[in-house]
């Protein structure tokens, strides 16, 4: 009776803690709204916001069939078929729900707060997943860590309305259901798992991680001889149903069966069936018969497999990219993108991370993870091996692309949660059994008051220690019978506890640490935990809450706000014709369509390399050629981002080499060395004439020297005086420059009404000189 009531109290307590974790996850992400305003952040979120607006206005069928003629002019973009609709549909559904409850929230508000809501969900999913692996205590610890891990926070602060915000929840939840199915062998969870996978496919291109990680894990289980019917139940329905469901998402479609990213899952599906048949046959036949059968089948099967393999390899090798997409290939071969696809390499979040970024993004978790791995190995179960595998692959991927740190973060949180919970349970156990008051003959009943005591310590650590005890007896039960259903296991567990209580007590006493060491250890862990919390709050408040469309700087005079982007977009919206085309580098495409509502040539959905290269070529060409290129695209306005006046470093001049590279990749007359003086990129007097004549330089520095105070034109980003001053534009005219000169908008001049004859002076000089020479050298008479 006693143990049951404590269980109830514990579960109520755990639910309360979970609720608080949810509140924490939500509220720690609100710094951006408090410090700035409730506004959509960065680039991609603007597109998602625009799509959600369209969805809420026109309904789901129009959204599905949406052909957007305001972007990628003149090609257009089939938004419905090229977008992962999960995020949009989720936010659209929430908006619809809230509005049908007569709570009149705007679409923008819903979009801004989608990410914090889903990070609360993600924490809960982490709890579920970790509980399946190592018990409630580890689950709570992992959920707490995930609620505020900076890496995840960087993508899910309020206003960061991007796919990842929803996708991380979907990812963890899919993994949870996989582990759940693996532990229970229930077909119900397997079907749920397929639906969770479907949601993930809807949400993010990162679903390929799931469809490769789970087969890897299944393969690992088979190879290590852990095949079971539960594994089959967990895997086969997921692949079959999941693939069918994934093919329903327009953006995936036949990719779900045609590309190499999905190949591993099918191979493992074949393998698991072979293994299942083998196990089945083994049960039917006598050992000798079985051996013979294996020999026979092995011979025939090997021959068949080799032929099949050869056919497959030739088929795959026939395609230039081996059936992989560029982004996946750059994951497998980290140098691939920088060699062949500058457009992928040019994105900063596709660069490999630096070591400090690990510390910045997962902080103390980096130190706890190894301990978590060790904890997972004693004892190793199917679920714990999955978590370890997840961590290892995610760690590799995060090393290739800084963006995938996001996938590593949940794995790191889960393992750190496990580690923390194990360590706390060891320490608290030591405290308990080494305490002088401990009586040797303590039975199982006595354990419960001790739990009670620990639980009543209302701190985070208390939770871990208390629930750590729960987890401490879970491995035993896992060892005993994994097949048995939940209910019977609970009954058995009680018996086991009674039977083994005295034995385990002795074991625990032997494992215990000295009292002082445990006390110090706990204190140190508390300090470590507080350091993490302090770092996370700092990251949330300072590092990751800036919306990047509004910039601030702290000066002695106080806070200074740079709102140039919105100023420029508002100017475009109010002062240009509705069908005017605006050209800029692709980074600003989404914002231009969303905020200025004008047609753009290229945007952040970089699907057409040639089109981007055309704009890159125009930016790197001299004025006249650039004018011709833009004219052929019906462009009316061109804008550049210029940070030289206020020292904004991510401006177009700093991105310019990528424009040259991407442009030169398609149009070979643009050569990168022409823009570099002895291999260094410079814009001062030493710069090459090509550089000083290109459109990007001219549009950035037009009137810069004249308008600067000393007339010299000192660029505060490049920290140098510019190389060419006082030039005129012949084919472009400046129409608007924002307050801090960060956005400069130019208009293409129409072609000249008349064409002038040859310049007079020149002609005169030529004639004179020719007259002189001819009269001197060849004194001839009138030839006629």
């Amino acid at each position, binding site marked *: 009776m006693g143990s049951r009531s404590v269980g109830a109290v514990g579960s109520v307590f755990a639910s309360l803690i979970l609720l608080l974790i949810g509140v924490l996850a939500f509220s720690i992400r609100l710094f951006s709204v408090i410090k700035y305003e409730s506004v959509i952040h960065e680039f991609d979120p603007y597109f998602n916001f625009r799509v959600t607006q369209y969805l809420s206005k026109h309904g789901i*069928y129009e959204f*599905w*069939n949406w*052909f957007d*003629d305001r972007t990628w*002019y*003149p*090609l*257009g973009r*089939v938004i*419905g*078929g090229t977008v992962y609709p999960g995020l949009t549909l989720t936010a659209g559904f929430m908006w619809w729900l809230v509005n049908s409850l007569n709570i009149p929230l705007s679409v923008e508000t819903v979009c801004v707060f989608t990410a914090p809501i889903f990070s609360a969900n993600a924490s809960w999913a982490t709890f579920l997943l970790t509980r399946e692996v190592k018990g409630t205590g580890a689950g709570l610890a992992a959920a707490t860590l995930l609620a505020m891990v900076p890496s995840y926070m960087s993508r899910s602060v309020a206003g960061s309305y991007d796919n990842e915000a929803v996708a991380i929840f979907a990812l963890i939840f899919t993994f949870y259901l996989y582990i759940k199915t693996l532990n229970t062998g229930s077909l119900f969870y397997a079907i749920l798992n397929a639906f969770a996978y479907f949601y993930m496919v809807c949400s993010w291109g990162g679903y390929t991680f799931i469809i490769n990680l789970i087969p890897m894990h299944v393969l690992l289980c088979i190879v290590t001889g852990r095949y079971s019917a539960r594994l089959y139940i967990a895997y086969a329905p997921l692949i079959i149903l999941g693939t069918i469901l994934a093919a329903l998402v*327009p953006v995936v479609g036949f990719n779900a069966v045609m590309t190499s990213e999905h190949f591993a899952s099918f191979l493992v599906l074949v393998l698991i069936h072979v293994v299942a048949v083998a196990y089945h046959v083994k049960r039917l036949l006598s050992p000798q018969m079985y051996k013979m059968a294996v020999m026979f089948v092995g011979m025939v099967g090997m021959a068949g497999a080799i032929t099949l393999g050869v056919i497959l390899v030739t088929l795959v090798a026939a395609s230039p990219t081996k059936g992989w997409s560029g982004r996946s290939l750059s994951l497998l071969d980290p140098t691939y993108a920088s060699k062949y696809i500058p457009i992928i390499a040019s994105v900063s979040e596709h660069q490999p991370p630096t070591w400090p970024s690990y510390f910045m993004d997962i902080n103390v978790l980096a130190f706890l993870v190894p301990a978590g791995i060790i904890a997972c190995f004693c004892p190793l179960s199917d679920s714990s091996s999955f978590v370890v595998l997840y961590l290892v692959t995610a760690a590799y991927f995060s090393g290739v692309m800084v963006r995938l740190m996001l996938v590593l973060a949940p794995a790191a949180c889960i393992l750190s949660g496990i580690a923390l919970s194990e360590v706390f349970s060891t320490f608290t156990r030591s405290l308990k059994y080494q305490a002088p008051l401990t009586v040797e003959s303590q039975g199982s009943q006595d354990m419960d008051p001790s739990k009670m005591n620990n639980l009543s310590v209302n701190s985070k650590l208390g939770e871990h220690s208390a629930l750590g005890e729960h987890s401490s007896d879970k491995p035993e039960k896992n060892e005993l019978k994994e097949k048995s259903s939940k209910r019977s296991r609970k009954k058995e567990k009680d018996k086991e506890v009674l039977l083994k209580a005295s034995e385990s007590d002795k074991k625990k006493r032997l494992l215990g640490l000295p009292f002082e060491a445990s006390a110090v250890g706990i204190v140190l862990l508390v300090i470590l935990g507080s350091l993490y919390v302090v770092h996370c709050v700092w990251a949330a408040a300072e590092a990751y809450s800036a919306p990047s469309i509004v910039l601030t700087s702290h000066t002695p005079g106080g806070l200074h706000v740079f709102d140039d982007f919105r100023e420029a977009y508002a100017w475009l919206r109010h002062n240009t014709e509705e*069908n005017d085309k605006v050209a800029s580098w692709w980074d600003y495409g989404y914002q231009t369509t969303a905020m200025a509502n004008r047609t753009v040539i290229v945007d952040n959905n970089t699907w057409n390399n040639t089109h981007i290269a055309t704009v890159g070529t125009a930016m790197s060409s001299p004025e006249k050629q650039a004018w011709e290129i833009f004219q*052929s*695209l019906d462009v009316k306005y061109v804008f550049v981002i210029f940070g030289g006046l206020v020292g904004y470093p991510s401006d177009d001049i700093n991105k310019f080499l990528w424009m040259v590279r991407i442009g030169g990749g398609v149009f070979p007359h643009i050569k990168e060395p022409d823009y570099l003086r002895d291999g260094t990129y410079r814009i001062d007097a030493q710069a090459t004439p090509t550089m000083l004549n290109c459109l990007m330089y001219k549009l950035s520095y037009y009137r810069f020297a004249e308008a600067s105070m000393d007339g010299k034109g000192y660029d505060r980003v490049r920290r140098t005086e510019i190389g060419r001053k006082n030039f005129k534009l012949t084919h472009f005219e400046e129409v608007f420059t924002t307050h801090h000169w960060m956005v400069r908008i130019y208009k293409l001049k129409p*072609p*000249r*009404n*008349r*064409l*002038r*004859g*040859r310049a*007079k002076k020149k*002609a*005169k000089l030529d*004639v004179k000189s*020719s*007259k002189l020479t*001819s*009269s001197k050298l*060849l*004194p*001839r*008479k*009138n*030839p*006629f």
Partner: protein
Amino acid sequence: MAMAGRAIQVSSIIVILLGIASGSLSLPPDRSLHPRILVLVDDLTVKSSHSLFFASLADRGYRLEFKLTSDPSLALTSYGEYLFDGLILFAPAAEHFGGSVDIASILDFVDSGRDLILAADVGMSETLRTIANECGVEFDEDSNAVVIDHLNFAESETDTEHSLIAADTFVASSAILGEKGAEAPVLFQGIAHSVAPANDLVIKVLSASASAYSANPEVQLNGPPSLSGTSISLVSVLQARNNARVLISGSLSLFSNKFFVFPFKKFGSSTSFQRSGNQMFAEEISKWVFHERGHLKAVNVHHHKVGNLEEPSMYRITDHIEYSVEIYEWTGKTWKPYVADDVQVQFYMMSPYILKTLNHNGQGLYTTSFQVPDVYGVFQFKLDYNRLGYTTLAISKQIPVRPFRHNEYERFIPAAYPYYSSSFSMMFGFFLFGVVFLYHK
């Protein structure tokens, strides 16, 4: 006041009625029916010595106003409004203009879409040279050089230098020179000019023959002449991008009464002409310059799906569509339907996907129909009509073309029937297997 207001009302009603009566040609005129022309001369004798030319203009309804270039009250604009529709500059030696007129204001006059006739002559001023140069015409550097042709000159007692050219190399354009063209050679006496071959806005209307050259007869020629042969243009016209028209002639006397009625015999030719072609040439080309001919206008661009007259905001790939446009030509008084068999429309996205010649009904209505290509994107109906002597028609209308909607594809494809049957047989087989497996034993 009330009376006047009513009068205006009545007259406007009459105008509207007239407009309705004239049917499809009720387009408002682009240009004044009685254009005002300012004639700038540096000597008022030009008015009488060129009276035949001016009379022909006046007969056609032009209101001419003669002013001396030195007139201090000279002005082209008044409070931002142009006072004239055309300008005739018969003052080759004018260095300065009176009043507010200068080179820039004359060029602005042209850039506002108004027309200019400029006649130079031997001893022309730098001012005129600059204006001509701005219009893409380069006169001989030496202001005293004349065009000399020892083979194609008109025999005359006074002309000993063979500078009275009888030119008959006309541009082949009935739009510029009229249906009949010039029946006799045009007499020309004056300075040569050339046109840059790359300049596609300027047309050489009257060129010199291969044996002509430009030289100052007073000075001995030391080298080859700066201009010679067919590169010499005697009369050129410019049609600016805004359709302003400019006529530049190297000879003022080309327009004179004396040359109009000059009986002559061309050197080496047996036929003698009673009259030169000058009068006809001057009249016809003045008609062109003042937009009585070759001035086109495209209106009522319309496109729709076959069977649905409403103009959609977007087409779908493989739609069948119809396109129509009306093209009219200005005659100086009314719009008349323009008839040509070579008007084409492009369905254009970065390059023309479809190029169709439009059919016409003889009443100015041009139509065609075609199928939208199987490519989606933002297309344009592009009508680019550039013909010698006609105004440039460049109209484009943007129209997006979308792909199929999700429910516009075929529901069942015959080629896929094996797959349908295999999946249904699979389902049925599995059901049977399930029944047998569960309940048989």
